[in-house]
């Protein structure tokens, strides 16, 4: 299973790693109990600082996507419970939609883009 990091991505590296792992979980490619490679291995393979990977893993842990056990590494957790606060849940969607509107996309273009992305997400791993 692979996670792709683009050369033109403006997000910090740790964010790309964390978001990439979350996308794989959402698609059902990474299931509960799957072990992730160690921080050292990821840092070595990508040629980046250990701390960068550690920050990504810590973020995933804080958000409840992975459990880090001492000596056993990071393991994918059961799907975190849905936030009770709807505003919190929709906040990332609002940010993304704002960016698309500011980029000049029309309403129907945005709807089409969202539909396509959702289809891709559901096709790849059969996410619920």
């Amino acid at each position, binding site marked *: *299973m*692979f*996670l*792709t*990091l*683009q*050369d033109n*991505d403006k997000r910090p*590296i740790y964010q790309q*790693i964390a978001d*990439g*792992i979350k996308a*794989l979980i959402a698609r059902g490619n*990474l299931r509960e109990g799957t*072990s*992730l*490679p*160690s921080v*050292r*291995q*990821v840092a*070595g*393979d*990508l*040629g*980046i600082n250990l701390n960068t990977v550690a920050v990504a893993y810590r973020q995933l842990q804080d958000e409840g996507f992975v459990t880090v056990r001492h000596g056993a*590494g990071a393991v994918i957790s059961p799907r975190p419970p849905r936030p009770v606060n709807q505003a919190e849940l929709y906040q990332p969607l609002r940010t993304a939609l704002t960016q698309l509107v500011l980029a000049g996309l029309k309403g129907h273009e945005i709807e089409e883009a969202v539909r396509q992305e959702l289809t891709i997400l559901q096709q790849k791993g059969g996410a619920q």
Partner: protein
Amino acid sequence: MNAPTAFELEVLSTTLIVLALVYALVKYLWSQPLQNGPGFFLGNEVPAGFYEGPGRTWLKAYRATLAALHLVLAAALGACIVLRRLDLWYFGTPLLYVTTLLAFHAWTRHKLGSNPPIRPVALALETRRLGDYISWPFEALSATIIAFSWWLLMRHGGTRIEWLPPLLFTWTALVLPGKILIVRSGSPLPAERAEEHYRYQDAMRRNGIDVLSAWSWLFVIFLFGFALRRAWTPARNVPWLQWLILGIFWAFWGYMMFVVFRGQRLAANMGRGLLPSGSWLTPFRRASWTRMSRPYDIWFAIWFGGIMVLSLYSMYAHL
């Protein structure tokens, strides 16, 4: 049956080394620059039509360097036979061979690969565990034989023993740190055909570990044979026992050569059309063209340097 003389051993060992060098030259080294296909020269990405233009000169220069290297080795072998100092040839050959090829690679990389393209990188989310690559029972067996050999030398020597050869054999056999570092080393994978690049990299990783293991066992057997011969009187007087140990040693030598050439074959078959490590930049860094991490390169320099220093000292002590 007589026990093997030192001269017979040198002739046999030299013949085996020469055969391996000639086979490597003809079968793999001669066309190695083209191993990754026409878009590359010795692992450096080159523009289309390179081999119709400057590529011809580069190829000629590479082959001229190889020919010169092997001619020098052949001339040195002749001189060492005349001087009856084949030990000098055993020492000089790997040194000249490795440094010449590394220097040519470095020069090519400097001239042809100084501005590699940036490409998206893929991260394999597979966990590499030491136990999946290294056989701990075999490591324990190897350590036990080494310890037993030293025990034989120390407790049952009886006669004066030269400590330099067993020290050299032991140092040469200690490759476990290198194997661990190979497991931990990983080169960035291009996002395009990531799965194939991953399989290729893993096959090379396993082969690298097999080569180090075979090399290590070669010297474990050498050390054991040395200890047995020096410390156990019957081993000095029973020719068939000496031939048996030599036979085992050469069987391991044959296995090592098989593994080395299997790796070359794998690299040629699996690597065709793939991006060589170090021929491109990730968004974060350039991959090492050795496919290894910096800790591995440091370990290798210390280990290889140690072998060279001990060999040099051994020759100096015999002057």
